[in-house]
C-alpha cells in the first residue's frame, strides 16, 4: 500500500482498496464487497449515531464500490447529511457522492437543493464553489429550475470572487445546455459580455465558453461580444511569450483562451465594422505568420498548443469564407502539414482541407495537393488517417480530376480496410456518376466496383447504374456488351449477375447480332449462374427470361423448358414458383403483340434524388458529405449567417427558384423548413433539401419494380390508394398571410396558386405544371369538401384538359363563395397517369376564413370600447406560444396586414404590442374581429388574443394566426 501523500488518512478506506486489489478472482472481489456493504449498512442502521468522520469514510467506500461498477442502493441519505456539515472535507465527499450517484428521488433532490441553497448563500467562496460544482455535475432539470435564476446574479455581482465567477459561468453554461428554457435572458447578459474585458484571464476563459454557447442561440443579444473578442484576441497574439505568466503554456500565450475566442467569432459573420474587421485580419495573419517561425521549444506541447490556435484560426477563415488571400494562405499551411512527421498533424490537415475544398476561393489551391493526398492513401499506416484522405479526395474532386481520383480510389479499394469499404464504394459511385462525361466510363467504373468489392456494393449502387443505363440510350449497347463480357468470368459476384440479368433482359438484343453473344449464348450464360444465386436474384433472372421470350422468339422453347422444370414450377419458394407459373402461362397463351406490349422496354425513370448520395448522407451525417455547393448552402444557413449576404431570417426571404418562372408568379414562397426545391439538370438532385411535400412516384429502388419489369412496363395500373394529404396544415399555414405561391411540388408536378378575395367572394387560379418530358394522361383534379364544409363554402370550377404535355402548364379557375364561417380547408385531389403508373396526390387547398377579412381602421378609444363589449368568455380566444421565427417587428406587422385585418398604430399603450381590427364577411352575416398580439422578447414567446362576436370565428382565427409567428 503506498503512503497516502497528502491530506487525510482515511486508512479504513485505504485498507479496503488494498483488499480489493488483492482479490485473486472476481468472486473473491464480490465477496469482499458484500462483506463491506453489510458492514456499512449495519453502521448506518445502528443505534449509535455516527460521527461525521465515519460517515464520510463509509460514504467514500460506497462511492469506490460504485465506481468499480457495482450497484449501490443506499447511503444517499448519509451523503446528503454530509452536505450540511460545517467541515469542508465532509461536505466535499458528500457533494462528490451526490454528483456521481444522483438519483431522481424527489425527496432527496429537495434536501440536496436546500443544502446547495445554503452554501450558495454562505458567502464562503469555497462552499459556493462546491455547490456550483454539484449543480454543474448533476445538471438536471430540477436543478436548473431551482438555480438558473440565481446563478446569473452571482456571476455579475460586483463582490463575487474571481474563482466563484468562473464556476458560476460554467455552471450556467451547463444548465443552459440541458435546460435553456430555465435560463432567462436579461440585463445580466450585457454584463457577462463585458467579462471578456476582465483582468483575470481565468474569468475571461470561463466567460468565453459561456458566451459562445449562449450566442449560438441568441446571436443578437451577444453581438457586442465580437469586437471585445477581437481586441482580446489581438492583445494575446501580439503579447510576448512571457507576458501572460501562468497563462502561457509552453511558450504559447493563453492557447485555450485563444481557441475559445476564435470559436466564439465563428458564431458570427465577418465583423461589419471595418476597423474591427481589419484588426481581426491582422490577428489571423499574425497567427499564420507564427506558424512559419522556428519553434521556441522542442517539446510537443509547444507545437500542439501553437497549432491548436492555428487550426482554430483556419476554421474561422473558412467560416468567414470571404478573404481569398487568407484562404489560400491557410491552404498552403495545411499543405505543409500534409507531409509533417507528426501523424496528428497530417490527420488534422486532411480534415481541415476537406472544408477548405468547398470554398470557391481555395478549391483550386486544395487541388494542387492531389498527389500528396493520393500518396497518403497508399502509405499512411493508420486507417483513420487514410479515411481522412479518402474524404479529402472526395471533396476535391471535380470534372478536371475525376478520372484520376476515381481510378485511385478503385485502386485503394482492393486493399482497403473492411471498415471503410462500403463508404468508399458509395463515394466512387457518386463521383463516377456526377462527373461522367462519357457514360461508358461510368458503366466500367461501376462494374469494376462490383468486381473489386461486390460485397460492399449496396443495392442503391446497382439500382442506380440500371436507372442510368435505362435513361441513356447512348450507353445501352455498350452496357450490354460489357456486362456480357464481365459475366464470362468463372466466379462473379451476385450483384454482377443482378445487373447483368437486368441489362441483358432489356438490351440483350443490341448485342445479339454478334454470333459470340447470340440469344442462346446469353441465356445459357445467365442460366449457368442461376443455381448459385439467392432467391431475389433468381426471381430477377426469371423476369429476364420472360423478357428474352419477347426479345428472342427463337429461344422461346428453351426458356419454356426451363420454366416448366420441377425445380421452377414446384419451387419451395412461393415467389419463384409463382413467377415460373405465370411467366410460363404468359409465354404460352399471349400473342406476339400482347407479349411485345407487356414486356416492352422499361420507360425512363423519373429523375430524382440519387439514392446513393442519400445513403452516404445517412451513413456519415449531412455535414460530412462534401459537395461544393451544398456545403456552402449548409454553411450559409448557419444560425447566425455564414456570410454577409446570407439571409438571417429564412422565413421572410423569398429566393427565386426556377420553379417560380414556370408559373410566372414571381418569387416562389419558401418556408424556413423546406429549402428551395432543386431542379438541377444533374441526376444528383439536391439531396439536402428534405422537401416536405415529396411523394415518391415510381420507386425504382424497390425490389418489386425491378423484379417484375413486366408489370411496370405494361399498361397494368397499380392502383395505389391516394397518398395521405400532404403535410396538410403546413401547406395551409404557408398561405394564411398571402395569396400567391407554389402550393405543392414533387418530381413530376408543380402546383401554383394565385388568388384574390373581396368581401365574401374569391377567385383562385390553380396552375398545374408538368415537370417531366412525358405526357400526363387522364389528368383529373377534383375539389373535395366535407359535408359540413359544403354548407359553408361554395366552390365552382370547370374540368381541365385531361392531357398535360411534358413541360406544359394548365390552369384551372375556382370561384369561391363564403356562406358562413368554417373551420377546415377543402382538399384538392389530383389523379393522372404517368409512364404507365397511376399517380394520386392530395393537398389541402388554402382557402381559410381570414381570406374574407376586410380591414377596419379605428381610433384607440373605439378599439377599447369594442374590446370591452366583447368581454364574454366565449367571445375571447387566447393562445400563448413560443416564437417559431425571429421576432422582427416589421415582419410581424406585414403578417398581420397579410392576415387581412387592419393594423392599428398607437392604439395599445404598450408600443411593443400589435393590435388589429377587421370584419369577416360571409353571405349570411358579418363578424367583427379584434386582435391583440403581445410579444415577449426575453422569453421568445407571444400571447395572442382574439375577440369576435362568434366563438367559432375567434377560435379559428386564433388557430390560424398563431402558426404565423
Amino acid at each position, binding site marked *: 500500500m503506498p503512503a497516502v501523500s*497528502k491530506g487525510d*488518512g482515511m486508512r479504513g478506506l485505504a485498507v479496503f482498496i488494498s483488499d480489493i486489489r488483492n482479490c485473486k478472482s472476481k468472486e473473491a472481489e464480490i465477496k469482499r464487497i458484500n462483506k463491506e456493504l453489510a458492514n456499512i449498512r449495519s453502521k448506518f442502521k445502528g443505534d449509535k449515531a455516527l460521527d461525521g468522520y465515519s460517515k464520510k469514510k463509509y460514504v467514500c467506500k460506497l462511492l469506490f464500490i460504485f465506481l468499480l461498477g457495482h450497484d449501490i442502493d443506499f447511503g444517499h441519505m448519509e451523503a446528503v447529511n454530509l452536505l450540511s456539515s460545517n467541515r469542508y472535507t465532509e461536505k466535499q465527499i458528500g457533494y462528490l457522492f451526490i454528483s456521481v450517484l444522483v438519483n431522481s428521488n424527489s425527496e432527496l433532490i429537495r434536501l440536496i437543493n436546500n443544502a446547495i441553497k445554503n452554501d450558495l448563500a454562505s458567502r464562503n467562496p469555497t462552499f459556493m464553489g462546491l455547490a456550483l460544482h454539484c449543480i454543474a455535475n448533476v445538471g438536471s432539470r430540477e436543478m436548473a429550475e431551482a438555480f438558473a435564476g440565481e446563478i446569473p446574479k452571482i456571476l455579475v455581482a460586483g463582490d463575487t470572487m474571481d474563482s466563484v465567477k468562473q464556476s458560476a459561468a460554467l455552471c450556467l453554461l451547463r444548465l443552459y445546455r440541458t435546460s435553456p428554457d430555465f435560463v432567462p435572458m436579461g440585463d445580466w447578459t450585457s454584463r457577462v459580455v463585458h467579462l471578456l474585458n476582465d483582468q483575470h484571464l481565468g474569468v475571461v*476563459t470561463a466567460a468565453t465558453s459561456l458566451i459562445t454557447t449562449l450566442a449560438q442561440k441568441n446571436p443578437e443579444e451577444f453581438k457586442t461580444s465580437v469586437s471585445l473578442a477581437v481586441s482580446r484576441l489581438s492583445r494575446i497574439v501580439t503579447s510576448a511569450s512571457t507576458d501572460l505568466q501562468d497563462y502561457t503554456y509552453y511558450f504559447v500565450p493563453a492557447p*485555450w483562451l485563444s481557441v475559445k475566442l476564435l470559436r466564439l467569432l465563428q458564431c458570427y459573420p465577418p465583423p461589419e465594422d471595418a476597423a474591427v474587421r481589419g484588426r481581426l485580419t491582422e490577428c489571423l495573419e499574425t497567427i499564420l505568420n507564427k506558424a512559419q517561425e522556428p519553434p521556441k521549444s522542442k517539446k510537443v506541447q509547444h507545437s500542439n498548443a501553437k497549432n491548436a490556435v492555428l487550426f482554430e484560426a483556419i476554421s474561422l477563415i473558412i467560416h468567414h469564407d470571404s478573404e481569398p488571400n487568407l484562404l489560400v494562405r491557410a491552404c498552403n499551411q495545411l499543405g505543409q502539414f500534409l507531409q509533417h512527421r507528426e501523424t496528428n498533424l*497530417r490527420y*488534422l490537415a486532411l480534415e481541415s482541407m476537406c472544408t477548405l475544398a468547398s470554398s470557391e476561393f481555395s478549391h483550386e489551391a486544395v487541388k494542387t495537393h492531389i498527389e500528396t493526398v493520393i500518396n497518403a492513401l497508399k502509405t499512411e499506416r493508420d486507417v*483513420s488517417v487514410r479515411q481522412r484522405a479518402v474524404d479529402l479526395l472526395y471533396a476535391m474532386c471535380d470534372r478536371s480530376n475525376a478520372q484520376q481520383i476515381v481510378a485511385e480510389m478503385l485502386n485503394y479499394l482492393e486493399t482497403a480496410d473492411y471498415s471503410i469499404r462500403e463508404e468508399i464504394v458509395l463515394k466512387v459511385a457518386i463521383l463516377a456518376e456526377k462527373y461522367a462525361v462519357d457514360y461508358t466510363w461510368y458503366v466500367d467504373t461501376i462494374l469494376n466496383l462490383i468486381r473489386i468489392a461486390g460485397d460492399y456494393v449496396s443495392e442503391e449502387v446497382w439500382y442506380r447504374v440500371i436507372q442510368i443505363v435505362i435513361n441513356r440510350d447512348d450507353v445501352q449497347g455498350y452496357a450490354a456488351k460489357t456486362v456480357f463480357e464481365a459475366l464470362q468470368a468463372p466466379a462473379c459476384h451476385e450483384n454482377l449477375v443482378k445487373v447483368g440479368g437486368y441489362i441483358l433482359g432489356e438490351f440483350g438484343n443490341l448485342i445479339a447480332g454478334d454470333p459470340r453473344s447470340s440469344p442462346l449464348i446469353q441465356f445459357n450464360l445467365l442460366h449457368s449462374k442461376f443455381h448459385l444465386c439467392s432467391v431475389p436474384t433468381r426471381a430477377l433472372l426469371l423476369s429476364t427470361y420472360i423478357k428474352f421470350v419477347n426479345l428472342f422468339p427463337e429461344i422461346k422453347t428453351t426458356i419454356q423448358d426451363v420454366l416448366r422444370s420441377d425445380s421452377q414450377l414446384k419451387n419451395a419458394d412461393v415467389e419463384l414458383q409463382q413467377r415460373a407459373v405465370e411467366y410460363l402461362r404468359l409465354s404460352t397463351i399471349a400473342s406476339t403483340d400482347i407479349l411485345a406490349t407487356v414486356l416492352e422496354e422499361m420507360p425512363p425513370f423519373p429523375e430524382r434524388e440519387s439514392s446513393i448520395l442519400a445513403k452516404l448522407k445517412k451513413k456519415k*451525417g449531412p455535414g460530412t458529405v462534401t459537395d461544393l455547393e451544398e456545403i456552402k448552402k449548409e454553411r450559409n444557413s448557419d444560425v447566425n449567417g455564414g456570410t454577409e449576404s446570407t439571409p438571417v431570417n429564412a422565413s421572410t426571404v423569398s429566393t427565386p427558384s426556377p420553379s417560380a418562372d414556370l408559373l410566372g408568379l414571381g418569387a416562389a414562397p419558401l418556408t424556413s423548413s423546406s429549402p428551395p426545391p432543386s431542379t438541377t439538370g444533374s441526376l444528383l438532385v439536391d439531396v439536402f433539401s428534405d422537401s416536405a411535400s415529396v411523394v415518391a412516384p415510381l420507386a425504382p429502388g424497390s425490389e418489386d419494380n425491378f423484379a417484375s419489369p413486366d408489370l411496370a412496363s405494361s399498361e397494368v395500373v397499380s392502383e395505389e390508394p391516394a397518398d395521405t394529404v400532404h403535410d396538410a396544415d403546413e401547406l395551409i399555414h404557408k398561405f394564411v398571410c398571402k395569396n400567391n405561391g407554389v402550393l405543392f411540388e414533387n418530381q413530376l408536378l408543380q402546383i401554383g396558386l394565385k388568388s384574390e378575395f373581396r368581401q365574401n367572394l374569391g377567385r383562385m387560379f390553380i396552375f398545374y405544371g408538368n415537370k417531366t418530358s412525358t405526357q400526363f394522361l387522364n389528368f383529373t383534379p377534383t375539389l373535395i369538401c366535407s359535408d359540413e364544409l359544403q354548407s359553408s363554402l361554395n366552390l365552382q370550377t370547370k374540368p381541365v384538359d385531361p392531357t398535360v404535355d411534358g413541360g406544359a402548364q394548365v390552369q384551372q379557375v375556382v370561384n369561391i363563395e363564403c356562406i358562413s364561417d368554417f373551420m377546415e380547408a377543402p382538399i384538392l385531389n389530383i389523379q393522372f397517369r404517368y409512364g404507365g403508373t397511376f399517380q394520386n396526390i392530395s393537398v389541402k387547398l388554402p382557402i381559410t376564413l381570414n381570406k374574407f377579412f376586410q380591414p377596419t381602421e379605428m381610433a384607440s378609444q373605439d378599439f377599447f370600447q369594442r374590446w370591452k363589449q366583447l368581454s364574454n368568455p366565449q367571445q375571447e380566444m387566447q393562445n400563448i406560444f413560443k416564437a417559431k421565427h425571429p421576432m422582427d417587428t416589421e415582419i410581424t406587422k406585414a403578417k398581420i396586414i397579410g392576415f387581412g385585418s387592419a393594423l392599428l398604430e398607437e392604439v395599445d399603450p404598450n408600443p411593443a404590442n400589435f393590435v388589429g381590427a377587421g370584419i369577416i364577411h360571409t353571405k349570411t352575416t358579418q363578424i367583427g374581429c379584434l386582435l391583440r398580439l403581445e410579444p415577449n422578447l426575453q422569453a421568445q414567446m407571444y400571447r395572442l388574443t382574439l375577440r369576435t362576436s362568434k366563438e367559432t370565428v375567434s377560435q379559428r382565427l386564433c388557430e390560424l394566426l398563431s402558426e404565423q409567428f
Partner: protein
Amino acid sequence: MRFMLLFSRQGKLRLQKWYLASSEKEKKKMVRELMQVVLARKPKMCSFLEWRDLKVVYKRYASLYFCCAIEGQDNELITLELIHRYVELLDKYFGSVCELDIIFNFEKAYFILDEFLMGGEIQDTSKKSVLKAIEQADLLQEEDESPRSVLEEMGLA
C-alpha cells in the same frame, strides 16, 4: 466535452467523468466499446478518431490511457493539451503521479479534475490557480481533522 475516461492497459476503468447525463447502462456500454477501440490501436497511430457521432482524443501516459470524447466542432489539439495539463496537475499534486495514486486517492483525482474542468469546459488554465484551490482545501482538511489512533481507524476501537 462529453466525457473523460481514465483506464489502464488492462482495461480497468480508473476514473470517469460525464458532462452530459446518460443512463448507467448506456455509460457502461460506451466505456466498454471505447476501451476496446482505443486499446486496439498501435503506439504510433494518431491520437484522434471518429467514434459514433463524436471525436475521441486520447493519450497514453505510462500504464494509463486518458481519453476525452468531444463534439464535432471542438479542437482536437487543444484537447490533447488539456489532457496533458491534467496530468501535470496530478503530477504536481501527488509528486510524480502513478496509477496507484489515482486508485488509492480517487476522490482527489476527481477533486482536481473538478477544479480544472467544469461542465466539460476548462475552468482555469493556470496550473497555479488550480493547485492553489486544491491545496487550500487540503489545509482546511488538516485543520479540522484531529489525529486518530490506528485501531480506531480500523474500526477496532
